[in-house]
């Protein structure tokens, strides 16, 4: 177990998990002195029938639930303000956020406005501007991937002013995260696959990025073991209840890991690819993960090799010679992508040239790779990557990931 000269670790979110975890929400709210929640969600979540399940779990045990399902896919300051108004007009005393990243961001933004009586959300942006406990916020994730139910960041966009406001504070952490297998049961296989690979990228990047520490490590190891075991199972059989619960727990563990040890190149290039081409985040993570490991291999081979045991189990670990274990981890990730590709009938893309939009159009044309490589230089995740990346390296990695060829490590500059 590695003990760094200095580290910090924090996850103050209470975790409640189970097949009937939603039913615990009324008691959890009561413990925090709350009884009238505003449920924040989006249309997709509501249409999937998930809000019905949540409402049934709350029925008769909290004051009539107020549901707002108009969170857009991209967080929006106007919606934040409108929902805050709704909260105040109805004298709500807590928030239940049911959904993915954008819903969580919006709920956190609403929580700042209603707790601080803020008229200008901007005044609370940046790090450490919040100074006290906010209203109780219960996070109910509906994918097993982002880990946003345990992160302390919120991103709210002001589309009028073309501003992206970033809020960072321990007070933004949800009070409780409720992981219930029913919330992910209806996810189709290809979304299951990409969100699961997103979680795996958190767990693995969290294990080799520069702020890694003993607690982020143990969270990562547990997450890797569970994801590698259960992701193929739930992709094949979406209604596997135990597998779904395990994936939600694993994604949460991975979220805790990466929000403490941070993420590196995989996220760095992934954010840029998402921004330039609109490729869903999970797809970027699945494609880039093996390359991130290859790129950093000369600096973190030992750490990467340690992932083989939780990933593949004792037999494969023992059969693989010590100096090939890190490389084996990389090839097993590629194998996972292959398997998910076949389980999803080809919808889970293995490399960028394969990524298509709804109309079957290629989303990442080869000639935009330089633009992505450049955009990645501006992304914050570069700071935590073990190896310093630059434009040329980014482009090399992206080209390999576009073609689906292993990265030629001899070509990179090692700093």
């Amino acid at each position, binding site marked *: 177990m590695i003990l760094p000269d200095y580290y910090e670790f924090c996850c103050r*979110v209470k975790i*409640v998990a*189970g097949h009937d975890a939603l039913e615990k929400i009324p008691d959890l709210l009561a413990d925090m002195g709350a009884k009238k929640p505003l449920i924040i969600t989006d249309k997709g979540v509501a249409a999937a029938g998930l809000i019905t399940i949540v409402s049934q779990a709350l029925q008769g045990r909290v004051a009539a639930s107020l549901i707002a399902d108009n969170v857009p896919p991209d967080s929006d300051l106007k919606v934040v303000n409108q929902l805050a108004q709704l909260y105040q007009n109805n004298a709500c005393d807590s928030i239940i956020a049911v959904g993915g990243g954008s819903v969580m961001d919006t709920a956190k933004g609403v929580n700042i406005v209603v707790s601080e009586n803020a008229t200008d959300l901007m005044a609370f942006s940046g790090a450490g501007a919040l100074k006290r406990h906010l209203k109780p916020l219960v996070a109910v994730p509906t994918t097993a991937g982002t880990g946003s139910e345990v992160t302390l960041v919120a991103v709210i966009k002001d589309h009028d002013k073309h501003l992206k406001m970033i809020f960072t504070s321990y007070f933004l952490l949800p009070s409780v995260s409720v992981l219930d297998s029913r919330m992910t049961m209806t996810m189709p296989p290809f979304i299951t696959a990409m969100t699961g690979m997103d979680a795996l990228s958190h767990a693995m990047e969290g294990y080799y990025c520069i702020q890694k520490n003993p*607690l982020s490590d143990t969270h990562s190891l547990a997450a890797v073991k569970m994801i590698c075991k259960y992701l193929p199972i739930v992709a094949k059989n979406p209604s596997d209840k*135990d597998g779904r619960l395990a994936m939600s727990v694993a994604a949460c*563990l991975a979220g805790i890991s990466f929000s403490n040890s941070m993420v590196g190149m995989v996220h760095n290039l992934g954010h840029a690819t998402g921004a330039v081409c609109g490729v869903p985040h999970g797809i970027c993570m699945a494609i880039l993960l093996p390359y991130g490991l290859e790129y950093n291999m000369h600096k973190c081979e030992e750490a990467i090799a340690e992932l083989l*045991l939780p990933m593949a189990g004792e037999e494969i670990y023992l059969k693989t010679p010590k100096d090939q274990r890190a490389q084996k981890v990389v090839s097993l990730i590629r194998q996972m992508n292959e398997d998910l590709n076949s389980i999803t009938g080809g919808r889970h893309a293995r490399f960028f040239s394969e990524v298509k939009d709804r109309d079957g159009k290629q989303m990442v044309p080869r000639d935009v790779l330089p633009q992505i490589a450049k955009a990645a230089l501006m992304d914050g995740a570069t700071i935590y990557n073990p190896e310093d990346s630059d434009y040329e390296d980014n482009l090399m990695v992206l080209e390999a990931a576009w073609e689906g060829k292993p990265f030629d490590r001899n070509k990179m500059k090692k700093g």
Partner: protein
Amino acid sequence: MNLAAGFAFTCPFKTNSGNRALEHLPVELSDLNAFKPLIITSLDLVGKKAIRTLTNAFGDSGMTLGVFDDVTNTADLNIVEQIKDIFTKGQYDSIIALGGDVVVDVAKVVNLAVSLKVTDARQLSGETAIRNPLGSFVVVPTAAVTGMETSKYAFLNRKPFISIQLMPNLVILDTRLTRAKDGKIMAEAGLAAFCRALEAYIAPDKNPFMDAYAFAALRFIRENLITAVKNSSDKKAALAVANAAAMSGCAVSNTGRGVLNRLGQVFQDMVHVHPGVIMGMCLTPVLDDYMKKDSRLISVLLYPLTTDDEYAATPEAKRADGAQNALRKFLDELYGALGSKMPRNLKDAGIPPYLMDDIFEVISREPDGDYLCTVIERAGKSPLKA
């Protein structure tokens, strides 16, 4: 691990660990919206040097500090009342507990008293309802800890206070404070942390989140405790033991109290023997019983108690024996390094027989009292071999 049964987990404290970790304290406090902390400590138990290291860390932060350094081993609710008055009159807004064991127990109950704004702290009891988060509370452990500092438990004068809200918001492990000159102090803390983490690791209600703390604690102790005991100048080994102790407090707060944990507490309450001493003695008989009951419980221990390679190379059927052997080897080496400093049975611990009668009486009141008594009897008679 059975996830399907459902579980809850919480760890309200942040950990800052390492070189000059204390220098982060002013920023961390202001993040908690605290600017005027009262330090609760003990000149006798903690020492002048540690107190100076802590106060110096505030440098030119501009924060006003108060220091109460008169906590004694026999502290009770009277001292809580006294500190509550100081806190209120001085208009402090947060508490920093510097030290271990009783110092932190007192600080936890003071935090309860000032947060609930009780008129008389002497009226507080384990039944006092605690619903909302309490005031900002930081624990800065020294080497002489029990591992319960970061837990949801406080014991004052044999009275238990139990609530997740009693846990600190922040624990700071600083290399300048976590070393001990005396290997015995290190061993006591390490053994207590080890045994609690071990009980959490094999608890029937364990979950992956709590496991992350228990696993890290077990590996840290196995890899570092003996070094820290043998070499008092090894900063890193001592810090690893301190980390394990802090992690064990989280693990124990998320599961029921195991046999070793409860036995350690009884001896601590009744005769002021460090719980690590008792837990270390009782570990072997308790694990023998687990082994007889269900060897699978013991076989899972091989993973934290050995290296990845050795674990992977041991076939499933041999893991329980492997874990027991690893444990025996570890304890033999540890007790061997301590020599006569660390008692190996109750007789050597110097507990007078008349007090043992009282202890047996208290223990036998537990629901599994008869069993606990047999553990004590076995720990008393069969000295651990060195």
